[in-house]
């Protein structure tokens, strides 16, 4: 079982990286790039087959370490199988 954890800055928090990437995209002619936010994707392989338990544990991982909830938000997906 795997978890895909997406960590992004809260909408209320300025994202200097996203702003720089937006500027680069627009200077390359991608004028439709109206807003860019850069975040992280964390892929976890879990040694469990209990989906409910996995969700609880991954939520705890996010709250404890993976996200700084002062500035970041997170969401995750639990998917079957091992890493491709």
């Amino acid at each position, binding site marked *: 079982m795997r978890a895909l954890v997406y960590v992004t800055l809260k909408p209320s928090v*300025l994202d*200097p990286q996203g702003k*720089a990437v937006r500027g680069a995209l627009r200077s390359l002619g991608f004028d439709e790039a109206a807003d860019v936010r850069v975040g992280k994707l964390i892929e976890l392989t879990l040694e469990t087959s209990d989906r409910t338990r996995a969700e609880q544990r991954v939520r705890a991982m996010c709250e404890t*370490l993976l996200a*700084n909830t002062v500035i970041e938000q997170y969401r995750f997906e639990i998917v079957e199988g091992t890493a491709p």
Partner: protein
Amino acid sequence: MKTAIVVFPGSNCDHDAYHVMRHVLGLQAEFVWHKQTSLKGFDLVILPGGFAHGDYLRCGAIARFSPIMEAVADHARKGGPVFGICNGFQVLIEAGLLPGALLRNRGVAFINRDVWVRVENDRTRLTGLCRPGQVLQMPIAHGEGNYTADPGTLARLEGEGRVLFRYVSPSGELDDRFNVNGSANAIAGIVNEAGNVFGMMPHPERNAEPLLGNAQGLVLFESLAGLRPGAEAA
């Protein structure tokens, strides 16, 4: 007066801090490896600059779970002074010992240069020997020093005199061009509610003796050590 300088894997200003306390001020100082669990016998704890645990995930995010951090929190709870410089500030914030967060610099780039900070509160243990409104020139070297906090926290910090330093022009004026990393309210350093946990992004330990061309950072260590400027070290 005995200082513990916490060493994480990736700390790189630990020797600078040690040098200031031990050789410039002539006080007792020891390195404490992050896997140790006790700070017994130490009066002051310094979390130095660097890139603890490679700054992986977020600056300070992994360091805050180092075994020594429980002892750091305990030292702080008992009222002992804790001083986090640069990466040490980031660790204190991740540990929840100081409020807010440090984002990527406004211009995204890592900035390594001298800046000017104005002392906003000279009645703390870190700034007690500074003059009111004194402007100190000191280096910064960071990629994530853009201080932010929710509006309520910012209002409390401001209202309670807990903003210790602000980025200013050389003459001490607030000017957005000198707020190099884009920090909220140009905040460069803060103190906790109890007044004993300090964090700042600039590096006073890198300019604490005349040999380095600028000794303007020394006054902060003298304040912490309870010394008077020019007085013989204990």
